């Protein structure tokens, strides 16, 4: 039985997300804000967290911080209509490498859930699995050795190199542009 927590301040989305993910073998909890999400995450053990970036009380990045500070390394899928480069870098440094750009379709959602919980088969999936454990150097090596790369894989490689180097947002922006988070985000059609 897999367990997933949906965190979003938008009731319709909570409803839609949970409905889309609910199936045999998946149990869905929902939280309407960052504070209650941290509370629930402290009480239960989840296989994945779908976390909205912008929330009125405690925003997504603070929730991630809270989780990691508490030693909780649950895979987190960060969802937002707009993820700034700064937010993306902050998230990646805390082992959050799965982004979903709203609007998401039920298919996107299921794909993302499968991607973060399932076994890694492609070099990119393996690399991101390492990145979730903050082993960025290893992730880069896997991508470099992984043979021909598609655009998304290539962009991930470049982004992770910057992370390894410890570059700040301006340098990354100059090299990869503002929209990098959207470009490396999860997509059901780009499996």
């Amino acid at each position, binding site marked *: 039985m897999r367990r997933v927590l949906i965190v979003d301040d*938008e009731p319709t989305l909570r409803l839609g*997300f949970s409905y889309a993910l609910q199936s045999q073998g998946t149990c869905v909890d929902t939280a309407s804000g960052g504070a209650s999400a941290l509370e629930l995450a402290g009480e239960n053990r989840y296989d994945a967290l779908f976390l909205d970036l912008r929330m009125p009380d405690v925003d997504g990045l603070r929730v991630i911080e809270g989780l990691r500070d508490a030693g909780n390394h649950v895979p987190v899928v960060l969802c937002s209509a707009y993820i700034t480069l700064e937010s993306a870098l902050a998230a990646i440094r805390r082992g959050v490498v799965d982004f979903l750009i709203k609007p998401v379709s039920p298919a996107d959602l299921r794909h993302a859930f499968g991607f973060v919980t399932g076994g890694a088969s492609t070099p990119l999936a393996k690399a991101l699995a390492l990145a979730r454990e903050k082993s960025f150097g290893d992730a880069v090596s896997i991508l470099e050795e992984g043979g021909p790369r598609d655009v998304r894989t290539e962009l991930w490689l470049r982004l992770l190199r910057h992370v390894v180097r410890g570059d700040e947002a301006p340098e990354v922006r100059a090299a990869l542009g503002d*929209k990098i988070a959207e470009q490396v985000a999860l997509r059901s059609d780009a499996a």
Partner: protein
Amino acid sequence: MLRVRLLLGLLTLVLLLWAVGGAGFLILQDAGKRFDQRLVVDYQAIDIAHGFRSGTSLLNSQYLTSLSAPAGATPPDPALYQEVMRDFDEKIDAMRRLSEGNERWNELLEEFEEALVTYRDGYSEFFSNDFTDMERRSDLLIRMGNRTQRLTDLANALATLAEERLFASTKDLDRESRKNLALIATLVVLGTGIAVLIYFQLLRHLVEPVVGLKDSFEELRKGNFELSLPPPDRASEFAPMVASFNDMSRELHLRRRETDQRLMRKNLLNRALLSAIPSPVYIIADDGSSPVLNPAAEELNDRLGLARRLPGKARRLFESCQESGENLLPEDPREALLFRIGDEERHFLPRIFRFSSEIEEYSGWAVLLYDVTRIRWLDDMKSNMLATVSHEIRTPLTGIRMVLLLLLESQSGSLTEVQHQMLTSASEDCERLLETLNNLLELARAESGMTSLNLAPVPLAEIARESLLLFETIAAKKGIRIDLQHNGDLPEVCADALRLREVINNLVSNAIKHSPEDGTVTIRIGRSGTDFLRLSVLDEGAGVPDGIQDRIFERFFRAEAQTHDGVGLGLFISREIMRAHEGRIGVRDRSPDKPTEFFIDVPIA
């Protein structure tokens, strides 16, 4: 006037010269004549005296020699004697005429006449020839010898006297000529005096004004226009010249004042202009002197608590500009410098540029701080709005979309046909709304970010390959093949890789949209002229209808028959990006059997 003076002076000199010459000439002539006369008189006297001597000698030798012999039978012929005596009488007369009242001369002449009487008595005795006595004869010879001696002595005395007189007259002449010499010397000294006078007059009236004029020109040259020459005598030849000079000086003075005024006006205008610039401006001359501040800059420095110098942040930028010699003219308000003035935060965009005039010493740098606080605020507002719109509209829309998609997945149970139709329609509307929203956001982002291109040499073929990789999967779903053609040996282009990628992706995406199933989309790269690389995207779709080819790059333009999603911003944004690159974008006229071709020309790096 000067002319008259000069004439008079020189005339005097000439007259004096004539006078000296004439006097000398006359004196010389007079002395010569008198000497000649003296010579004639005295020479005649000496000649006559000698004539007496030779006459007596002649007579004595003719007659008295016979006295040493006994008297002849016939008495001696007295003809010669008589002739000589007549000659003697004439000569005595002549001598008397030559006496010139000289007593000694008269005395000697009288004594000579007396001696001659005695001499004549002797000869009368001789010619009587009545004695034959040898003793008497010898006695007469002796007496005659004495008398002849006496005559000779007197004649000699007369000759000596004549010589003495000649000598005396020479001495007179000498004395007189010495007197004349003194006169001539006086005249020469007088002439010299007059010449000196003329010299000083010339100096005063000719040289001094010229020197004065020269000095005045010198003063003019130094810029002293106040100077004017004192007007000379009206009659002076220099009067018109001095008048001309004074006119010229006045004119120059006037011009100078006009120029000064004009310069001052210009200076005031410049100052006013500088003062009127609402932004702080610092003018820094090349010599490194302290900067000139306009009022706005003074106010800023005042509020920052700085002396008359560049604020630290601007100074660092300025120093690097000075080092590199390049202007710093950033456009992006994000490059503004932050100044904290009290509690206020103000953003100033630095504009650092060099200015130069023809004269090197008036070259320098200007630092203008353009207050972009408001622009920054608006920029932040725009960013916030983008984020807000993205979140506040897209999030609920996402919910709606999610619910609609879930319903359509029929997980909530079976739908009636009508319900399914309505849900499909609503879902399509929802998709379109999202697309529109995305495009609007994209447009806002594109229009604001276009000024800050990150230009660098970029391999165009590499970007095209990335685009191919990106769309391959999507194209494959429609059975469309993407083909990349280039000859491999291409220069890099000067572009912002991210922006250029957007354009190419847009063209490829459009081509896939418009391609018939199982068609081919071709990306072709080649040269376009010497300065550009051309990337063409060709598809086998219906192409762009005639008459709207120019309009497809306009904002929100959509062809009427277009059935695909989108509000028609893709080509507009692409055109804006290509404009910012100083490149081109266009569509080729389609001929029936050829594919539709969209192209971009990108400047070669």
